């Protein structure tokens, strides 16, 4: 029976090949040759620069200390990708025609899975190549065993990651597990780094596939052989299991991925990143409803949007926590590293990204402006303005905590007190910039594309990039300026009034622009 349905799949493939022949062998070889020759030329040109730059960061010590943690998180990230897409995504018509026919699902999935496995192995090998370039720099050199071992180890990890993503793609339970595994991998990864630095390096390298793959570089030769064999066996078992799972994967999971893929692709062609992201997110399902923790609604109408945003923040704790962590890091950078000229713009951009994460309710408002017109009373611009309150509160508290932490650690630079206060005061400016960026929606307007095509010497790329970076750049400048003025001032009294004036005026102006938004 199994042979018969597999033969049917082969017949369908043969028919398909006749009707829609793929590229010829010559064309494929031509592509391969072009890629190889380009890589060789660019590699030869860039090797010296890349080696010098990478060798500062990638050393035998850093690979042993940070490598397992990074590989672990990468495994979790690729596995999580299976929640939205995964290694086997059929085209929409294929779902109706092929999956609806009495054909072996496993056989149908085999080729896309094999392609994904090849990509996974190539990705792993590429990471190994970059790592080896760094390791071999500064005259350190690498042995042939390390080259082969690390390349093989990371290629196997790439395949293992694809196999895990396949499991996640086929199972709702595995999908939920992957959602938990990602943040958990960051925590465990941090633990691995601490353990490796504390002298438990051997235990870390044997703790799982994330360590086994790095044994050829960080461990002994004898241990590396055993680790690689173990890794190969585990990878083969995971891959076989994933291939078997595709034989019983529910059609619904293929349908939502096919629709998400088609939607995301169409949106990408329309330069609409937001819709593309939403299309992919829908494939991950509606998510679990968190029971309890309901906020009592306020009585004052003016607080309606703030209450609604607070509910949304509680409903998505991972999103809120991510924004807080990012804002804490940016706040600490803004205060502790103030003497460095690049610190403030980078910190402002960190706060901007954190604000962008918690501004999701505002984006939903922009996605469907008619919803607020039907359910709410206030003008659209005022509603958007009201959406700033909760993100400002969350980010400002996080930055204040970071500043307090820096102060408690005794790392405050000169004018540290003023810098700490200013770091909190610039939050409304940066959040307003993030809101104005979100107000545009995810789609690059036709007018921008047309203007770029007409008068842009870069062929339109420059205009589009300028449109994309307008508000992040505004956040970097307006958010950093007050801090830079104070950090670079010899006497606090010279810079503080101007810095305070900018921090006070900028959000008022930006808020007025936001409030003037019409549907």
């Amino acid at each position, binding site marked *: 029976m199994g042979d018969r349905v597999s033969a049917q799949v082969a017949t369908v493939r043969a028919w398909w090949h006749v009707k829609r022949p793929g590229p010829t062998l010559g064309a494929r070889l031509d592509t391969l040759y072009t890629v190889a020759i380009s890589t060789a030329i660019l590699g030869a040109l860039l090797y010296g620069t890349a080696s010098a730059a990478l060798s500062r960061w990638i050393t035998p010590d850093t690979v042993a200390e940070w490598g397992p943690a990074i590989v672990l998180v990468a495994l979790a990230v690729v596995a999580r990708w299976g929640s939205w897409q995964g290694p086997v995504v059929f085209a929409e018509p294929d779902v109706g025609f092929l999956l609806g026919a009495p054909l072996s699902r496993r056989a149908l999935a085999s080729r896309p899975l094999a392609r994904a496995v090849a990509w996974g192995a190539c990705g792993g090998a590429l990471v190994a190549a970059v790592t080896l370039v760094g390791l071999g720099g500064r005259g350190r050199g690498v042995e042939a065993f390390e080259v082969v071992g690390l390349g093989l180890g990371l290629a196997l990890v790439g395949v293992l990651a694809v196999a895990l993503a396949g499991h996640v793609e086929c199972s709702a339970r595995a999908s939920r597990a992957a959602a938990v595994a990602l943040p958990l991998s960051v925590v465990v990864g941090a633990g691995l780094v601490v353990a490796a630095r504390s002298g438990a390096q051997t235990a870390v390298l044997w703790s799982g596939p994330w360590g086994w793959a790095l044994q050829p570089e960080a461990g002994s030769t004898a241990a590396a052989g055993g680790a690689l064999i173990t890794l190969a066996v585990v990878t083969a078992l995971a891959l076989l299991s994933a291939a078997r799972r595709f034989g019983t994967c529910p059609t619904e999971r293929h349908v939502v991925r096919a629709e998400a893929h088609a939607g995301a692709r169409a949106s990408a062609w329309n330069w609409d990143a937001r819709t593309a992201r939403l299309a992919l997110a829908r494939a991950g399902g*509606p998510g679990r*409803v968190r*029971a309890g923790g*309901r906020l009592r*609604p*306020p*009585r*004052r*109408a003016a*607080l*309606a*949007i703030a*209450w*609604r945003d607070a*509910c*949304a923040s509680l*409903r*998505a704790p991972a999103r809120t926590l991510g924004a807080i962590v990012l804002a804490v890091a940016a706040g600490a950078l803004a205060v502790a590293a103030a003497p460095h000229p690049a610190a403030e713009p980078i910190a402002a951009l960190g706060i901007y990204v954190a604000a962008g994460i918690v501004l*999701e*309710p505002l984006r*939903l408002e922009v996605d*469907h402006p*008619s*919803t607020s*017109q*039907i*359910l*709410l*009373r*206030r*003008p659209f611009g005022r509603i958007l303005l009201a959406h700033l309150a909760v993100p400002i509160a969350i980010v400002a508290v996080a930055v204040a905590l970071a500043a307090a932490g820096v102060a408690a650690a005794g790392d405050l630079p000169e004018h540290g007190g003023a810098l700490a206060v200013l770091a909190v005061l610039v939050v409304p400016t940066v959040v307003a910039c993030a809101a104005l960026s979100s107000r545009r929606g995810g789609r690059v307007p036709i007018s921008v594309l047309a203007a770029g095509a007409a008068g842009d010497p870069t062929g339109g790329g420059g205009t589009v990039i300028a449109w994309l970076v307008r508000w992040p750049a505004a956040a970097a400048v307006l958010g950093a300026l007050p801090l830079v003025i104070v950090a670079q001032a010899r006497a606090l009294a010279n810079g503080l009034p101007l810095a305070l004036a900018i921090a006070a005026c900028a959000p008022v102006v930006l808020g007025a622009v936001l409030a003037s938004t019409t549907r």
Partner: protein
Amino acid sequence: MNDPPPLEALEVGHSYGRLAALRDFSLTIVPGQCVALVGANGSGKSTAVRTLAGLIEPTAGQVRIEGFDPHREPDAEHARERLALVPDNPLLYEDLTVREHLELVTVAHGLAGSESDGRIDDLLDRLGLAARADFHPAELSRGMRQKTQLACALIRPAALLLLDEPVVGLDPPSQALLHAILAERKAAGCAVLLTTHQLGFADGLADRGVLLAEGEVVDTGRYREVAERAAAAGWEIA
């Protein structure tokens, strides 16, 4: 001086490019009156409702909701306070539960108070949504989302209730319930404008009927008479 009517539309028109979806549409609805807007697909019913509700700008004519223009701020804020809309395609926030939608509407319209929880519970119970109160829109069926949208419109007082194809997606018992609720609202003095393909649904509810074809009013009068003429022209009174 007479109070302005809940709805007054004067020679309203709307075009999508070269397609005139609505032309010379005039209509006045007084308190406690129900008007049914009927017509085939593409006749302009939804365009009419969306224009009257302020969702799309008229390309001609003017609309007043108790004297307020729903297309111009700050008038529009007063208009939104007075009208409640149930669109043909439910428009809800994906990140709020059914209950939170109702709470948001009560807070945003200044109606939150000690008794609002009870009102929300009663309405959820009546519409059969109580068991789904903590669900998000994405977890609900089309009919349940439609009921949630309806609940958002009914939880607050409104001088004018606009319903675009309210029975689409509703099962027969829910249609009967909606009929009863609209009859109550009408009896309480609320003006109602609804669009429907199902002439039978508006029977006993609508006082007046307006038949649209190709964006133009082709018949108007007492609902029963308009429905009978429409039936004679091939419409089925379900």
